[in-house]
């Protein structure tokens, strides 16, 4: 059994229909390979619980190794939560509406215990109208923006997220929406702020998305975030479906309204395939799902082997409302500020070549 296969089984540990983990300890070489995967995929806590329950056979050395890594992962999340509280408080004091995304919220609200879920950065969602103000608040706290804006106003109107890095390397991702390009532009952002759940962190009540929106965000992250999604992202999707009271029909209906039914279907297919879970109506629906032509084109920008930020942005042109909006969007894509180019492409010529290549990818997706 390869490290990837074992890691998939570990990712499903504790969920209904999960496959079995190895019942004899791995040899040193196989363990070293698995250990690397567990750390990269942020699965050390789940593996630790699997070993603790006797579901994953380990030697005493391997157990000690897992426990040490679990403690290390949890120490990091505490430091991240402290930073989250500081940023959240500063944003709220400045009158910015905020929702905490991913790790800190799902760890507490969608897992058996927060110590099952590791995470490596802080993700915050703010309304587009307050996006620039929120960025100024984080900058005033000493965080540095990683990449310059394509053109003034682009992030607040069209962008997915901006990464800020603090002095010690801790990263805060300030989100406007869930994804780059067409799918991100289709999300009903007002709905995300209409209702909220509350998670208590360090005695503070922190607003987060409601469960249905947390699930949809998990699907966006799993289906579109990385070409090879992290197993922890797939476990989140599975946990929502198998271990919470999520109203999956309502979630799928909302995804359809956003033009993102194919995103949910892809996330579910990836999850069931990679984690080796038993058949489930949600996975069967995902297998039968037929994406629209527009969804196929938009998905190609995220899933093609030639995927790039540019291809995702190009695929979003059709989703931008109005001629004026489309012109502003395309102008930012083709003629970005020099400071932005310095951080990404070397020249306008390179930018245009990448946009042309992105157009080809989008067309292939539609074919």
């Amino acid at each position: 059994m390869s490290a990837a296969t074992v890691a998939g089984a570990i990712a499903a540990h504790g969920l209904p229909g999960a496959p079995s983990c190895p019942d004899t300890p791995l040899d040193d070489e196989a363990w070293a390979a698995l250990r690397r995967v567990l750390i990269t995929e942020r699965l050390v806590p789940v593996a630790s619980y699997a070993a603790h329950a006797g579901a994953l056979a380990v030697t005493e050395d391997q157990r000690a190794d897992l426990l040490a890594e679990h403690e290390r992962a949890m120490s990091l999340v505490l430091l991240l939560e402290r930073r989250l509280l500081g940023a959240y408080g500063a944003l709220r004091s400045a009158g910015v509406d905020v929702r905490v995304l991913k790790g800190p919220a799902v760890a507490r609200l969608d897992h058996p215990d927060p110590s099952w879920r590791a995470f490596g950065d802080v993700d915050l969602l703010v309304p587009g109208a307050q996006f620039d103000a929120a960025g100024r608040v984080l900058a005033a706290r000493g965080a540095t923006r990683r990449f310059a804006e394509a053109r003034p106003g682009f992030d607040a109107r069209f962008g997915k997220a901006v990464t800020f890095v603090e002095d010690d390397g801790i990263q805060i991702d300030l989100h406007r929406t869930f994804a780059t390009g067409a799918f991100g532009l289709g999300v009903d952002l007002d709905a995300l702020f209409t209702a909220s759940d509350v998670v208590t962190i360090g005695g503070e009540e922190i607003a987060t998305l409601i469960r249905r929106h947390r699930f949809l965000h998990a699907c966006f992250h799993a289906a579109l975030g990385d070409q090879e999604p992290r197993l922890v992202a797939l476990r989140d999707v599975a946990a929502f479906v198998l271990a919470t009271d999520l109203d999956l029909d309502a979630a799928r209906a909302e995804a359809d309204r956003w033009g993102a039914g194919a995103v949910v279907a892809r996330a579910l297919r990836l999850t069931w395939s990679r984690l080796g879970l038993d058949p489930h109506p949600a996975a069967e629906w995902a297998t039968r799902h037929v994406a629209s032509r527009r969804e196929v084109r938009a998905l190609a920008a995220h899933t093609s082997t030639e995927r790039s930020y540019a291809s995702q942005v190009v695929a979003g042109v059709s989703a931008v409302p109005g001629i004026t909006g489309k012109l502003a969007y395309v102008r930012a894509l083709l003629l970005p500020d020099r400071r932005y180019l310095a951080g990404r492409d070397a020249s306008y010529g390179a930018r245009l070549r990448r946009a042309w290549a992105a157009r080809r990818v989008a067309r292939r997706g539609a074919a």
Partner: protein
Amino acid sequence: MARSTRIARAPATLWRSGPFGRVILAPGDAEPVACTGTAAAVWDALAEPLTLEELATVLAAVFGTDVDTVTADVGPLLAIWRASGAVIEG
């Protein structure tokens, strides 16, 4: 600390508990601190606010020893935690 003093986890303290033990990030600490053995048992017992006497009684039962011995043992730990803000009195 008087035996009747009530002790509680400070709400601002961030912590995680799992098979590895406990890690605690108190308001006054720069880095998380790992707790094992007696320290982990004390942290677990403080899931609800307790007087020092109640805490010692609980731990004495867990470790099979007498209340006075436990009181003497946990005193220094609680002093450290009070100083860092991990626990509060009252």
